[in-house]
């Protein structure tokens, strides 16, 4: 598959030699951005060009494609100078030698710390954080006037509202989905990777079957067994029912809110209720800019970032297109009253950056399988998680 891609790219290169704008060219910035960020980048690019006479081109790519294409196009000399990406790509991009470190200097003080942490590999910063996100409890105020503070309250509200015959549900979450289930794990002490003394993650210390993790999966199992949560609920089912006003509470993130607003749902967005007194810690995801290691314009790209991107107006413009809270404090303070910003800050404030080491690739499937086996009532939580951790460690050891 990849070899075809390489060959295709080479062919494309052959055919498009004249269109040199495809590749990083000295004295000209090329940015790869996804469809939500590309228009803002184009505007900034035009201003940069007007002010400094340096042309800026923006190519729109699917968000995931940016990651995979960079690995092919960068080394072939066809890549961009700047990309918009997610912090959890960092490990892969760094070990592959695809991105360049950035020194923000005094500007770093204006960023939310968790977003800088997310883009730091070892002790080096590799990206300029743009926005961050985390999941939380989204509730329909018409059905749930006051959000639950504890898991027991949530269960009480959910059992009262759920009427599966009529298609009403008190509480839904997508499954099997490690990302959305992790808050339950972390509330009672579960974690993915432990940390080394120097603060980096230790891929051989997997905490997904510790006591807290098992407790978290039991909480999930109870939801299924008690019949509150239909087996096999996915994102589309969950959100479409929520938009119809048939669901009291869901666990999701800012991306689900646009649809709710359009559907005229009066919703709230807050932290996930505590489990056994422990606060759920969702994964925090951060998007940001990264400079390609194959850029011909590294310094120019840095000027563009520091002098044009890092300011309140840009971050607010980005927020207007995509409701994820800005990582830049001056912009964030401006949005204090925004419900999404409040929700993410409240819920994600307790969160942890999603691990960005490449070993995370071994975790998702095994973890997801464990949740699914519990969901299907085939294994008990403890058994399923022990098995998953065994699989994960096996894969990580085999790849070393």
């Amino acid at each position, binding site marked *: 598959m990849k070899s*075809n891609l390489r060959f295709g790219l080479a062919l494309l290169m*052959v055919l498009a030699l004249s269109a040199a704008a495809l590749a990083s060219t000295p*004295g000209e910035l090329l940015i790869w951005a996804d469809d939500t960020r590309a228009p803002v980048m184009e505007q900034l690019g035009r201003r940069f060009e007007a002010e400094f*006479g340096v042309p800026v081109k923006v190519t729109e790519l699917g968000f995931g494609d940016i990651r995979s294409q960079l690995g092919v196009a960068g080394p072939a000399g066809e890549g961009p100078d700047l990309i918009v990406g997610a912090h959890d790509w960092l490990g892969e991009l760094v*070990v592959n030698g695809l991105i360049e470190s950035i020194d923000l200097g005094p500007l770093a003080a204006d960023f939310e710390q968790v977003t800088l942490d997310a883009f730091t590999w070892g002790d080096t910063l590799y990206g300029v954080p743009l926005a961050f996100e985390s999941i939380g409890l989204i509730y329909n105020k018409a059905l749930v006037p006051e959000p639950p503070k504890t898991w027991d309250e949530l269960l009480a509200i959910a059992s009262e509202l759920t009427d599966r015959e009529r298609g009403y549900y008190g509480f839904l979450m997508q499954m099997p989905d490690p990302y959305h289930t992790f808050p339950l794990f972390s509330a009672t002490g579960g974690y993915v990777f432990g940390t080394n003394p120097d603060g980096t993650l230790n891929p051989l210390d997997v905490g997904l079957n510790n006591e807290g993790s098992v407790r978290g999966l039991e909480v999930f199992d109870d939801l299924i067994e008690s019949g509150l949560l239909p087996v*096999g609920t996915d994102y589309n089912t969950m959100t479409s029912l929520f938009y119809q006003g048939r669901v009291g509470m869901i666990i999701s993130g800012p991306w689900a809110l646009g649809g709710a607003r359009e559907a005229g749902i009066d919703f709230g967005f807050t932290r996930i209720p505590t489990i056994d007194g422990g606060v759920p810690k969702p994964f925090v995801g951060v998007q940001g800019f990264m400079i390609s290691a194959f850029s011909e314009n590294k310094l120019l790209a840095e000027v563009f970032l520091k002098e044009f991107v890092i300011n309140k107006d840009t971050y607010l413009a980005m927020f207007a297109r995509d409701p994820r809270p800005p990582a830049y404090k001056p912009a964030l303070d401006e949005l204090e009253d925004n419900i999404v910003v409040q929700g993410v800050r409240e819920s994600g404030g307790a969160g942890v950056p999603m691990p960005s080491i490449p070993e995370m690739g071994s975790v998702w499937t095994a973890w997801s*399988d*464990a949740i699914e086996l519990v969901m299907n009532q085939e294994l008990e939580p403890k058994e399923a998680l022990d098995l998953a951790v065994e699989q994960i460690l096996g894969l990580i050891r085999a790849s070393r």
Partner: protein
Amino acid sequence: MPQTIVRPPGRRRVARGLPGGWGFYTRLAALSAFDAVVLPFVITLFRDQEYALAGAVGIALLLINFVVLVERAYPLRYLLPGLLFMGALVVYPAIYNIYVSFTNYGTGNILSMQQVIQQLEAQTYAPPGAPRFPYAVFETEQGERTLLLTAPDGRLLVTVGHRVVPLAHVSGPEAVGLPEDPGFRLDVTVDENGNVVRIGDARRLERREVLQRLSALQHLELDMDGTRLRLADANNFQALSPRYTYNRAENVLVDNATGVVYVPKDGFFTSPDGERLLPGFRTTVGLANYVRLLTNPAIAGPFLQVFVWTFVWAGMSVVLTFSLGLGLALVLNHPQFKLKGLYRSLLIIPYTIPGFVSALVWRGLFNTEFGQVNRVVQALFGTVIPWLQDPFWAKVALLIVNLWLGYPYMMIVCLGALQSISPELYEAAYCDGARPWQRFWHITLPLLMTSVAPLLVSSFAYNFNNFTVIYLVTRGRPPIAGAVTPAGATDILISYTYRLAFESGRGADYGLAAAVSLLIFFIVGTITWLNFRFTRAFEEVEHSA
């Protein structure tokens, strides 16, 4: 082999013209234009060190020229496009795949050693407390540049060539010139604020002009009494030394700060005590991927289960689609059947909808709680089926989806083949008193098989690797409880490979994936070969043709 391409007599004179005639010159002009377009690509590819690709394109170009210019190669004109595309789309990727299976290509090792050396050599470090020098650029009409640096103590420094000297040495009352040229002076113009605005003919550039030239300036290396100055950021020079130096003769990389020597080992520059420098590079690893494949318990674990299901899946898919397709074809072929055209069109619809759309729609239909299928099942039987949660039902669901996707093809094929069975045979059978069932069993099926059998074999091979349907409908799920490595009850070999190569370890592992795909190729190849051998499918076709 019979001669397949027969040149009609007289065509040569009409179409090609005599050498020296108009046709010849038109052809020559077109060929020259074509060559003029393609040749630069070959040269560029060669310059970019893509030798394999440059060679391939070059050979293709030569072949095209040969075929157009040489009389004897005339028949090749019809074959060449096909051959070229086969080379580009089948042979090249296959060879590349084999090559990759002997390398460590994958996350952490995607760059070439050359690129890694370049990247590591470009890394610099500043001695602690190294001062920063803000700078200004002066440029003449001809584009010659002089830089003016400001030292931390406010002293001005100027570049002469690549050398940095105090401005006071080459201009002003106390100027002493350069050591080798005591008379050297720069003509410096200062404005009323004391800012230098011109040096000789060179004008001071505005910031926007400096930024436009930044990408050229970032390669500059200045020499200040033996200290190397480079751009640390857009506004400052700083004494920066290269962190690593590559020693080509000994093929080692030396850390200039610590003196540690790194040797290339297993795709990484590795220090004597085992520390690896990032990033790693691609390198050949011999049979390591194959050894991993055969000895890894993770892979040997659920392999058998996956292997068996792959056969069941491919076999059942063929049997079911063929049975339904043939049945429908027989019905449609019945002389008394009305509105044939309408039904035929309706039945072909699944074939016209892109497969991945159908697959995703079916996935939704099979949802246990909300899917339409279970609504019907509940209405009829008062229970629901855990379609995508139970290993058995997930397999059934997959086969239903594949039946939906595959029967129209079989129906079309059978409809065509049925036409070719001579009606006299049926008449004779009828006269002999054969029942419909006997007629089907002894006439229709055997005669149909001669033309359809090769298609069934290829359908089997296709479904053996039908990643799309599996991945879109179940993603290989539900998981197998107790597997050593994540595997699903509906995973077939190719989707299992995908998991191994892309969803485990440290991300993508192209080397291992290439090894597994070669293994699958041998399995499928053997099965297909055996199939053809025992059904004698091709030979029958040749006889009947």
